[in-house]
C-alpha cells in the first residue's frame, strides 16, 4: 500500500514539475480551493466533482432501486394475500376484552403513524413526483403541491422524531429480544405460513423486528433528515450529498418495513387493528397470537379465564382458574 502510494506520489511530483498547467487544472478538478473576494461557503472552489456523482446515484440507483424495493414489497404482499389470505381467528370470539394498548400508547402510535405516512408521501413526491405526478398535473400545479410537500416534509420530520423518542422508551422492555421464544417464532414463520402457533409475548418476534428497524434505520433517517432540514450546520455540499443518499436509502428500508407492518396489522390479521383502535382485543385473539403475554396477565389476575367458553390447547396448569 505504502509503496504504491509512494510511486503515485513520485509520479505526481514528476508530473507537476514537467506540466505546471496540467497540475494546476488537476488541482482545480479535485476541488482545491483558491482565493475569492466573494463571501460564501466553498466559494473558492471552482469545480466540485462530487455533484455529478450525487446526481448519478440519486437519479440512478436510488431512483430505480427505491422503485424496485417498493414495487417488490407491494407485489410480495399482494401475492401473499392471494395465497394465504387473512389469518383468521380460529376460535370464536369470547366477548371477553383484554386491554392491549392503553390510551397513551394508542395516541403515540397514531401520531407517529400519521406523520410517517405524511413523510412518505411527501418524500416520495420529491423523488418520483417529476416522473409520476408532473405529467398529469402540469408544471404549475405540481410545483404547488411540491412546495407544500417540501414544507410538510420539513416540519413533519422533527415532529416524527418527537414521537419516536417516547416510543422507544415505553416499548423498549416489551421488545427486548428473547432468543428462545423469538427464534422459535421466526422458525415457525410466525404462524403466517402453515397452521403452527409459535408462542409469543406481548410483542412477537416480527413486531420486535419492526420496532428495532424503526429504532435503528428510522433513527438514521431522522438524524440525516434533521441535517438536511437545517442547512445551518455549515456542512459542505459533499456532506449534504452523502447525507441525502443515506436518507434516501434508509427511507426505502423503513417504508418497505412499514408496508409489511401495515399489511399484517390490517387486512393480514383478523382482529389486530381493533386493538390499536379501541385498545382492547378479544381473549381468543390474544390466546392465538400472544399466548405468553396472556398467561402473564392471567398470573397478575388481570382477567378471568373461567369466564371464557373456549379452552386452550396449552397445559391447564399455566392458567389459574378464578376462585
Amino acid at each position, binding site marked *: 500500500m505504502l509503496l504504491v502510494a509512494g510511486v503515485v506520489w513520485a509520479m505526481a511530483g514528476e508530473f507537476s514539475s514537467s506540466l505546471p498547467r496540467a497540475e494546476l487544472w488537476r488541482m482545480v478538478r479535485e476541488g482545491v480551493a483558491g482565493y475569492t*473576494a466573494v463571501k460564501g461557503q466553498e466559494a473558492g472552489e471552482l469545480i466540485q466533482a462530487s*455533484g455529478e456523482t450525487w*446526481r448519478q446515484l440519486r437519479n440512478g440507483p436510488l431512483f430505480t432501486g427505491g422503485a424496485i424495493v417498493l414495487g417488490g414489497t407491494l407485489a410480495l404482499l399482494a401475492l401473499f394475500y392471494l395465497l394465504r389470505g387473512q389469518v383468521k381467528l380460529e376460535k370464536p370470539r369470547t366477548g371477553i376484552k383484554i386491554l392491549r394498548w392503553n390510551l397513551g400508547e394508542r395516541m403515540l402510535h397514531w401520531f407517529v403513524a400519521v406523520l410517517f405516512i405524511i413523510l412518505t408521501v411527501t418524500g416520495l413526491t420529491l423523488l418520483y413526483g417529476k416522473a409520476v405526478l408532473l405529467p398529469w398535473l402540469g*408544471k*404549475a400545479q405540481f410545483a404547488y403541491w*411540491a412546495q407544500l410537500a*417540501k414544507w410538510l416534509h420539513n416540519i413533519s420530520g422533527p415532529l416524527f422524531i418527537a414521537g419516536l423518542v417516547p416510543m422507544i422508551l415505553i416499548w423498549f422492555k416489551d421488545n427486548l429480544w428473547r432468543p428462545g421464544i423469538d427464534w422459535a417464532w421466526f422458525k415457525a414463520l410466525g404462524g403466517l405460513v402453515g397452521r403452527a402457533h409459535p408462542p409469543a409475548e406481548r410483542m412477537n418476534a416480527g413486531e420486535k423486528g419492526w420496532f428495532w428497524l424503526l429504532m435503528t434505520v428510522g433513527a438514521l433517517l431522522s438524524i440525516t433528515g434533521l441535517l438536511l432540514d437545517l442547512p445551518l450546520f455549515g456542512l459542505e455540499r459533499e456532506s449534504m450529498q452523502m447525507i441525502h443518499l443515506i436518507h434516501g436509502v434508509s427511507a426505502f428500508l423503513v417504508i418497505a418495513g412499514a408496508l409489511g407492518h401495515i399489511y399484517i396489522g390490517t387486512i393480514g390479521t383478523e382482529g389486530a387493528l381493533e386493538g390499536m383502535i379501541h385498545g382492547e382485543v378479544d381473549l381468543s385473539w390474544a390466546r392465538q397470537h400472544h399466548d405468553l403475554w396472556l398467561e402473564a396477565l392471567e398470573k397478575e389476575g388481570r382477567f378471568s379465564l373461567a369466564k371464557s367458553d373456549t379452552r386452550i390447547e396449552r397445559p391447564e396448569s399455566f392458567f389459574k382458574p378464578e376462585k
Partner: protein
Amino acid sequence: MARMKFLCDDERCIECNACVTACKNENEVPWGVNRRRVVTINDGQAGEKSISVACMHCTDPPCAAVCPVDCFYITEDGLVLHDKDICIGCGYCFYACPFGAPQFPQDGAFGVRGKMDKCTFCAGGPEEDNSEEEFKKYGRNRLAEGKLPLCAEMCSTKALLAGDGDIIADIFRDRVVRRADRDEKPATATAPWGWGKAYGDKSS
C-alpha cells in the same frame, strides 16, 4: 442557431472583479447572492491563475436533472434558465452543480432557502422580455436587446468572453496561436496543456 458560451482566458484575467460587480449592478441581484465570482488558484505565488466563473450553461445540466419540479428550461441559444414561480427552494441544483452557480437568498428562519438564483447569461426568465416582472425576478434581459452579458462586455482585458460558441472558440484559438514565444519560457508556458507534445516543443 448559435450556442451561447462563456470562456474565461486565465492568461488574461487580472482578478479585478469588475465582472462580479457589473453583474450585481446590472441585474440587481438579491442580497447575499453573487451570480459570478473570480477565483484565484495559488494566490500570491508565481504563476497564480484567476478565473471568473458563473453558470456555464451546461449541455447536459446536472441542475436540471435533479430538480424535483423540472423548473429548468433550455433556450434555443443553449442557455439553461429557470422559472422562479416553480422553484421550491430545495437546493438540489446547488448540490449537483459543478460550478457552485445556484444560490439562495435566505428566506425566513432556520436558514430556509428562498427561490434559487443564478446567472441567466443576461437573458432573463420565462416572463415577457424586458417586462418589469422579469427584471425583478431575473435581472436584465440584455440578449433580448441584442446585447451580450455585461460581465463579458465590460471585461477590461477581454479575458471573459461571452457569445456564440463558434466565434468565441475562434477568438481563443487565434490568441493561443499568437501568444508569446513559448519556446523561450517553458516554465511559465502560456500554451495549452499538450501543446508541446503536439507541436514538438521539447521543453514542456
